[in-house]
């Protein structure tokens, strides 16, 4: 808008001196004082990260149960699908929409090898018992391996943890107990944290392997549950402790608490199984509407129908002494 057009726009409008720079300077100073007080009084949340060593020490049975499922290929990560592998356990679709499958595998993850076998092969150097157990396992048929792991996995329901070792009732588990107790020992030492982060190069900042492995277990989720961070606890809006989280995600988070998104059967093809995709699509549509408000008849008229603007410009309307629709008929 040119200066002339703006002058025309403000014709008959009472203008007053206004110091914009001073307003911003005062706001900047005021906000600094407020955030410094909040920072000094309340600090900020910082519950330490959980390591795989912490997990293996605190709940070795959960650790071994998870590791066994990784080796058997039955964990959530092993069966996930894109972007980690070509399975379909966690692939979501909505009507004709299959964006997860369309996107394909971009972060390949092989849980049995990456989380269990490769670390054990590293640890087996100088350990004859583990070397022999690995050799037996890798030399067995896939049916035999599955039978051992299935039996061992079942026995873990009544497992006991003693001095960091997991013991189960006697049975035909093949080398599984040796492998898993070696892995839990490696994990407790902190070695597995490093091995899962290693990426065949010196520097590493990608925690995909470690976090997928921990996410497959129950320990991390149990801690999150205690902090009210899980999805059905409005988790995205929370932070650890009594700190505010991403409260601005309230509408997105609301979706996970209400039907059809939180129901197994659902409605119109929307259910808890594809809630992530359905809620994101819903939020995407609502967001598009918000962006396009000025251009959508009806939507853009809501502020005129619900006269909250009478509060915003209370003084203006009081000075004019007219109702919002009575002055010029342009409404």
């Amino acid at each position, binding site marked *: 808008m040119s*200066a002339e*057009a*703006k002058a*025309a*726009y*403000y014709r008959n*409008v009472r203008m*007053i001196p*206004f110091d*914009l*720079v001073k*307003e*911003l300077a005062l706001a900047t100073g*005021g*906000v600094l004082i407020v*955030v410094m007080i*909040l*920072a*000094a009084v309340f*600090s*900020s*949340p*910082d*519950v330490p*990260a959980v390591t795989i060593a912490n997990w293996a020490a605190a709940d070795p049975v959960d650790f071994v149960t998870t590791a066994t499922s990784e080796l058997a290929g039955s964990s959530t990560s092993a069966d996930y699908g894109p*972007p980690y592998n070509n399975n379909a356990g*966690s692939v979501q679709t909505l009507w004709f929409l299959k*964006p*997860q499958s*369309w*996107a394909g595998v*971009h972060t390949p993850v092989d849980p049995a090898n990456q989380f269990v076998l490769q670390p054990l092969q590293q640890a087996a150097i100088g350990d004859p018992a583990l070397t022999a157990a690995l050799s037996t396992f890798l030399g067995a048929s896939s049916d035999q391996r599955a039978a051992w792991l299935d039996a061992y996995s079942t026995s873990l329901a009544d497992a006991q943890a003693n001095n960091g070792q997991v013991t189960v009732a006697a049975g035909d588990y093949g080398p599984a107990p040796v492998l898993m107790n070696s892995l839990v020992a490696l994990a407790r030492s902190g070695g597995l944290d490093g091995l899962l982060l290693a990426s065949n190069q010196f520097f590493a*900042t990608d*925690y*995909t392997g470690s976090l997928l492995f*921990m*996410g497959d277990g129950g320990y*991390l989720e149990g*801690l999150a549950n205690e*902090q009210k*961070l899980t999805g059905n606890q409005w988790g995205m809006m929370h932070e650890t402790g009594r700190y505010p*989280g991403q409260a601005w995600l309230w509408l997105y988070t609301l979706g996970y608490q209400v039907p059809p998104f939180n129901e197994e059967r659902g409605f119109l093809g929307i259910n808890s199984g594809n809630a*992530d*995709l359905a809620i*994101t699509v819903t939020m995407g549509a609502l967001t598009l509407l918000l*962006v396009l408000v*000025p251009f959508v008849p009806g939507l853009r008229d809501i*502020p*005129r129908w619900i006269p909250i*603007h009478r509060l*915003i410009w209370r*003084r*203006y*309307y009081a*000075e004019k002494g007219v109702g*919002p*629709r009575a*002055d*010029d008929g*342009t409404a």
Partner: protein
Amino acid sequence: MSRSQAAVPAGGGWTGAFRRQIARRLPLEELLPTNQPAYVHSWVYLFGAITIAALIWVVASGVVLAFFGPQWWHHSSVGRFFNSIHFWGVQVFFIFMVLHLWTQFWAAGWRDGRGLTWVIGVVTFLASVVAGFTGYISQQNFAAQWIAVNAKDAVNATGMGALFNPLNFGQAYGIHVMLLPASIVVLVAAHIVMVRMKGIVRPIDAPTPGVADASPSNEMAS
């Protein structure tokens, strides 16, 4: 011709033409006016200024945190203080940004050719949400671990997992400290310039003095 336009001499090739365009489209007296319509005397007009003020401190504290590295604030009390300023600055930023957005909605701030200003404002909000998310998963603590693990399913379900992996700290941190802040600052700058150049929209149903670029239905249309 405005005074600043007249101050730019003719000629000068592309540079001169560029200067004349800036002088014509962004005259200083319009960018930083010393007079405003009397109706801006309302608390709601402070929300935008407070949002900008909070952004200044979020960026400033973020620069300090980035300079000393992502682990500094976990073991340094000074670092923890700067992280706390960053944390609470973000909360203030979002509170007032949302207040600004909603009050502008109820004021129908997009009227009289201000549609693009609204669009840029909402896009800034969306970029800020993504910045907040990447910030939470860049904290290198338990909350970051859980949020990343939990959020990956939504990211993957939409196919975005092909581009962005929330479990990759390096990727999330890089996006958080560089790409998003730069985008937000540019968007906010564009938003402010558009607000200043268009001026503050008149109250709903204020008498229309004949606006050159207003549509016949005024006002609710952009």
